[in-house]
């Protein structure tokens, strides 16, 4: 034996699961949705996606360099933040806004707290909300899908949630589009952000993550379940004023939020019970904002508000440990 032996405390083997593999799986799960958004919205969507993703990676590299830290691009988290940000933006977002969003997400949403693992809020949502509040006009200019090769021209239109909010505020009644025939929206046949129009493929990606055990069912089920139940209660109270809960489900960013944003491990509770409470809070706030708030869509705000509650939830949802039992007499 020429070389000295390694001495270390056990265990001496590892599962081989790593953070970059986790991040890569989430990116894979988002690929169908990104591909669909490019198909539906064409070049504008591609440019938003590229600018956000490459922008996030560039700002991540820049922060590492400025802070003289090892380069963290390999963990894939910056690229993932970029993709998620893009999916939260309208396809008509100007290039400089996408780039600004990337800077906000990485610099203010993540690196300022110390990088991966230390940010209290979902970086992509921080960027989206900052852009929404700062540039309300650009951030609420929506276009209908114009699939590549279909010959259809994209036209300016409101999102289903936006159209509903406007009608309810003006007339006190739901518009017709919110009461019948809205099943089409499930297949992306509506105006919306890159990720909103892909409910079906996002759902497939979400199931992939559940199957791969990257995420657990607790947050998505409790989030979506709460929206359906609370939304359903209002609908039963007054179906002329409040939409069918399924309308809540397939319009807007609920599926994207429940499977990909609220499940961000860094910013959500760590225990099963905590995740259920977190999902419930997200669902409740989403419905309240959609029905009674100033904005038509509430998923982003709901998740960010619940992100703020995460440390508190963690503190009060410690699991009961083995052996906390009555001693046998």
């Amino acid at each position, binding site marked *: 034996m020429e070389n000295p032996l390694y001495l270390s*405390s056990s265990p001496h083997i590892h599962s081989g699961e790593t953070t970059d593999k986790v991040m890569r799986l989430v990116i894979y799960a988002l690929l169908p949705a990104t591909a669909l958004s490019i198909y539906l919205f064409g070049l504008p969507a591609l440019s938003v996606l590229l600018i956000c993703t490459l922008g996030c990676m560039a700002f991540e590299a820049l922060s590492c360099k400025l802070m003289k830290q090892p380069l963290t691009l390999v963990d894939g988290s910056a690229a993932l933040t970029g993709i998620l940000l893009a999916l939260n933006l309208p396809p008509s977002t100007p290039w400089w806004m996408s780039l600004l969003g990337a800077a906000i997400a990485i610099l203010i949403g993540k690196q300022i707290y110390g990088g991966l693992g230390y940010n209290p809020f979902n970086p992509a949502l921080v960027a989206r909300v900052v852009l929404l509040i700062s540039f309300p006009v650009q951030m609420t200019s929506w276009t209908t899908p114009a699939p590549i090769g279909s010959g259809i021209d994209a036209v300016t239109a409101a999102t289903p949630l936006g159209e509903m909010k406007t009608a309810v505020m003006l007339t006190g009644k739901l518009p017709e589009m919110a009461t019948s025939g809205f099943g089409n929206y499930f297949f992306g046949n509506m105006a919306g952000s890159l990720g909103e129009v892909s409910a079906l493929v996002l759902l497939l990606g979400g199931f992939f993550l559940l199957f791969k055990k990257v995420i657990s069912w607790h947050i998505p089920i409790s989030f979506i379940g709460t929206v359906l139940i609370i939304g359903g209660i209002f609908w039963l109270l007054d179906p002329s004023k409040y939409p069918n809960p399924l309308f809540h489900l397939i319009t807007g960013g609920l599926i994207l939020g429940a499977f990909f944003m609220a499940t961000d491990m860094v910013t959500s509770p760590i225990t099963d019970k905590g995740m259920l409470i977190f999902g419930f809070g997200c669902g409740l706030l989403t419905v309240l904002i959609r029905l009674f708030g100033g904005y038509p869509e509430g998923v982003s705000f709901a998740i960010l508000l619940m992100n703020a509650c995460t440390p508190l939830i963690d503190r009060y949802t410690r699991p009961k440990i083995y052996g906390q039992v009555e001693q046998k007499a």
Partner: protein
Amino acid sequence: MKLKSFSGGLHPPDSKEYSAHKPIERCPLPEELIIPAAQHIGAPADICVAVGDQVKKGQVIANANGFVSVPIHASTSGEVIAVEPRLHPMGRELPAVVIKPDGLDQWHESLRQNDPEQLDVDSLKNLIRDAGIVGMGGATFPTHVKLSPPEEKTIDTLILNGVECEPFLTADHRLMLEESERIIDGINILRKVLGIDQAIIGIEVNKPDAIEKLTRDCAAHNIQVQPLKVRYPQGAEKQLINACTGRQVPSGGLPMDCGVVVQNVGTAAAISDAVRLGRPLVERIATITGPGIVEPKNLRITIGTPLQYLVDQCGGLNGEPAKIIMGGPMMGQTQLSLDVPAIRGTSGVLVFREEDLPKMPAGPCIRCGRCIGVCPIHLQPTTIAAYARLEMIDAAENYNALDCIECGCCTYICPATLPLVQSIRHAKGGIMAKRRKI
């Protein structure tokens, strides 16, 4: 039969294929045996021989030092050539008796056979203590202490640990297959000592041949064989009790607090030898294995045999060793050199080469919660580890750091490859130090 298990844990690759099919072979005697005085949890024994003494196999060479201690015996006949500190598997030099075997391997004349039927409980317990019997699963807790619960504790169940959940190790598996009569005899003695009937042998279903063999052999003895789901750390006392009986050992308590005594199958076999044959614990079965060994084997080894000699019996080293582990890969201890001796707790010797070791830089915790999902005690390993890194010992204690059984599941699963259980050990040390001060 429905498979039982516990909640939490995981299933690392078994890696038992290296040696599971290899029948137990007797390892010959080496040139010299190094027999440390400390081979059990509790006070080390007091050495009572001197250089130049002739000793016989089974003769006491170190006396038990108090109740939680056992005597140490010469593992063969020969001459004491040194009484001095030698490198111990614990990683430092500790007092040891070095014996040069005379090749006769002669038992000491004072040892005599007994009929367990004719002996009372106290004599049985004394025989077990005097034979130096300790937990053979690796913990090496003196067995007679476990068999002496205070009067107010009622024991109703004896559980035999045939789980061997550590990857790579197959010594207990081979013992169950090849020497079940020793195990069953030991169980009968244990039941007599404890004054109970109910005995359960827990075995994971990755050892179907052992389950079949023991089910057949135990039929006439009213011993239940319980097949268990394959899940690490099911061989840990608390998890095995939970899997077999559904009971939980109270936090900070002992198995006797929930009416159970757990013994390893190897310990049961050693008890049979100690009582029926009058033979002290001077040999055991160990698995010499790993990708760094040419021909992995299950060896019947003489206590005190240097690891180098064991490795030589298995075709030697396969390539350059990078890590030598006594025990399994999840909880075993790394060794400074192959010069250390095998002791009573040596269930295996595992050799890894450079290319067999995980080498991933640790990153920040992404709060994925996997460590919580696999923790068999349902702790929050990442939270305790974070407090440990910050030296916030009180907070770590508040998060039940002391309940950690150090199984290593959290570190094994962590995608950030953080040394979680290692940090928790640090916290436990801090908590114990604080308690001593108060």
